């Protein structure tokens, strides 16, 4: 079976998803303080890496990267509730893009699989 990444349309689809997802994240008071980076381009590039990964596309993230990359946020209070919120925003983003429920579940599953690394557990 082809990956969600391929079925959605590859990189262009990820760009469209980043555009929606990053706006949702910045507007959401539960999580936006963790994304308040002055360098918005860099932040958007990270969102792109994340979405590419959960779509099953070519990505370079390892569990160790996830751990390293979020350590400073865990120190600032990042916990399960925030991961839940991100997975929810991921779902509503994909819904807006017309992605089928079973595919959303696959993407959410991949996001779920890195939860412990993200939270340094």
């Amino acid at each position: 079976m082809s990956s969600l990444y391929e079925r959605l349309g590859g990189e262009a689809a990820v760009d469209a998803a980043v555009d929606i997802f990053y706006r949702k994240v910045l507007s959401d008071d539960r999580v936006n303080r963790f994304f308040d980076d002055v360098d918005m381009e860099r932040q958007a590039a990270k969102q792109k890496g994340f979405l590419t990964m959960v779509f099953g596309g070519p990505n370079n993230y390892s569990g160790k990267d996830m751990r390293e990359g979020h350590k400073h946020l865990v120190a600032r209070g990042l916990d399960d509730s925030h991961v839940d919120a991100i997975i929810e925003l991921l779902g509503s983003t994909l819904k807006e893009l017309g992605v089928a429920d079973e595919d959303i579940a696959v993407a959410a599953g991949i996001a779920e699989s890195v939860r412990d690394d993200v939270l340094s557990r």
Partner: protein
Amino acid sequence: MWNLRYAGQNLPVCPGESVLDTLLSAQHEIPNSCRVGVCQSCLMQLVHGRVGETAQQGLKDSWRAQGLFLACRCYPEADLEVRAPATGALRIPSRVTAHTRLNHQVVAIRLRPEEAFGYYPGQHVTLWRDELLGRCYSLASVPALDGEELELHVKHLVGGALSPWLCDKLGVGDRIQLLGPGGDCFYTAGDTGRPLLLAGIGTGLAPLYGILRDALCQGHTGEIHLYHGALDLSGLYLHDELNRLASRHANLHYYPCILNEPPARAEQVQQADLMTLLEQKYPDLRGWKIHLCGDPAFVNKQRKACYLAGARLPDIHADAFVPG
């Protein structure tokens, strides 16, 4: 821990430290100003090793090819050997051709570089008082209108490192070194039909004035909305000139905006906080090209607001000024 070799010394680079941090903590005098990769003051040259992409972002190709990089944006991922570049070869001597007070705080300085100097209006250059002290200023001039002369707007900042000297000591005929240009805050020819939103506070008007006249010169047909925010009426230092331009170009709308003083003298001046005003007036910025310049608190918040109002990130050019 990586090793940084500089001037015959081996310096340990602590985790999370930039090359600039390491050199400064070893008491080396390295020119630096913004420390966020804008002003290009801290240029260094690679001798051995490699530097990441971000350390060379925004540099001219010819500089990259020579191994020049920004020490503030370079976080070593291996051992490095670096040296100070021959700044004489990079900095361009320029002659002051005009020094004009625009209001009680702002001076327009015109410079003629002594060698060929290509730039886009709205980009910035770094002016140097000596080997170490440099600060970044945006270009308000337009090559097609101003020829070889560059124009910069300098606000006299009490206690500032360079601006008091630029405003009070520098005079017509003096020579000053400049470095640059840099930055991607400029008008691009492919955008002639798009609506442009230009918003700046204080001397954030300088790059916008360059961009605006460049756009008009290039026959921009879309709407241009220019907002200049200041504390009071005296801060609107190009008020008459911008009114004159707006009266000659139907697609140009100039919106002066002051925070403190009731707009008694000039009816068109609004009393409002620029950020609040923009959010109210532009709930939907899809398709707009946006330039935001001036105070970092304004620029960074406004960029986010513009993005949330639907503008694409690559269409938002934000130039946050570093006080100096």
